[in-house]
């Protein structure tokens, strides 16, 4: 990636493939890309996902308890898909240069 975009842009960009993604998959990918490997970085990225879902750009499809500690042991994991509104906002924001 030549120049990194704001984290919420990148999250939406990852969802623009139209597939469903678990939050821990997105969090670990962003942690890797933005070199945010601390627990604080992890929680901060997850909070961005929560804000995107709260803003109606991602739809929460499924949940499961994190038993293996893949994200945070005992916490709820979420599987999201981008919404039509999310696609519109992402298209405004993220498609530049793609």
């Amino acid at each position, binding site marked *: 990636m030549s120049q990194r975009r704001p984290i919420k842009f990148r999250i939406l960009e990852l969802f623009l493939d139209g597939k469903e993604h678990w939050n821990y998959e997105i969090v670990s990918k962003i942690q890797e890309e933005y070199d945010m490997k601390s627990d604080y970085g992890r929680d901060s990225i997850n909070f961005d996902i929560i804000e995107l879902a*709260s*803003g109606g750009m991602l*739809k929460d499809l499924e949940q*499961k308890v994190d038993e293996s500690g893949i994200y945070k042991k005992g916490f709820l994991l979420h599987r999201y898909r981008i919404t039509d*509104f999310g696609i519109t906002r992402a298209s405004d924001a993220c498609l530049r240069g793609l």
Partner: protein
Amino acid sequence: MIFGTHFLPQFIVQFLRILDVDISKKYLADIRRLHLLAVELGLGDPPSLREFHSILKNGGTFVDLKTLKKQENKRKISKGYMWALFCAVFWGLWYLPGTVVWVLNPFDEMYAAIAKASGDGMSLVVTAVLITAFNALTVMLALMVWNGVLGKYGELGRTLREFHPCSKWFFLASIFGGPIAILGSFIAMGFIGGAFAAVAGLLYPVIGSILAYYWYGEKISKRAIIGIGIIVLGGISIYGGGVLTELSSGNIPWIGYLGGLMAAAGWGIEGAIAGKGLDIAEPDAGLTLRFLGENIIWWVIIVPILAILGFPMYSFAFQVFEPLTLLVLVFAGITFGFCYVTWYKSFPLIGVGRGQGIGNLYGFCAVIFIFLFFGDMPEWTIILGGLLCIIGSFIMFTEDTSALETLRGE
């Protein structure tokens, strides 16, 4: 081994597996007996029989996802309300340095000097410009420290670069929240009075929530509308007595009303615009850009224009480096900065309407802090207003959170 609400001790699970226990419903009596045994063996809070059955079916873990999701959503909404409440507290606290700074050098001397030449109303507005410019500067410093502590300089730079899709919203918010709202508030204060300015400002959530609803379809429930309405009424009651006195004092210049309108519309529009930008930006980065915009407006545009018009802006600005004045300005910067941090953080979680509604409690908080620090005894209308504010907040706090999972429709 402790019996948690959601987890069964592993030794019991292993034990059941070794015995190859059939956990289907037809062996309910056995399951009941096992449950009793588990309760006797376990410590702490044992699960119910239904939960116990579910635990066995799920290989040792009781997963009531619906409840867990509901709890998680409730925590998220509570966090949003907590941010908005902190906003009200910081905003109320800001009135202490915001009031004191007017009687400190060089601002008191500036006010007197300009009043002599251009009249009290104009002097108040011009002095307010310099105070607000310094306020924006100290807020910016506080936000840079805040972003540094959070390690968000990288995100700040990335967000700044995305002008077209993102940072333009924050610069636009700075125009409405800075010169329009703040200047409008000071114009209302200068030409009519402080109480009128306060009441006009308190109407901003009405404009913010209507705009957010019509512009980008932010959901707002009847309960939230009632809560916001009661808080606004509470605010009007707090400052109502003062407004009547001010309005009955004689000739009211139209510019005073315009100032009031600028305050309500400015902050309301700012919230709605910020909500749009916060869709795709982190609140801490977005807010810092909003204050970068406000600093540019004051220091690069308005202060130089006033200086060109002949007002002694720079001569008084350079006199600001007195320890007490600096201390008060820093206090103002910290309280105003964090009032905005918490305001912006509440929007993505509970929406612009609710965030602004609870943020409106600043009117009540300001009265409390001014009473505590300056000893100004509140009148009965203020106490009534405070009660209305508390009732309005409770109506909003106790709203069913399941409808707030997303703030917009798909």
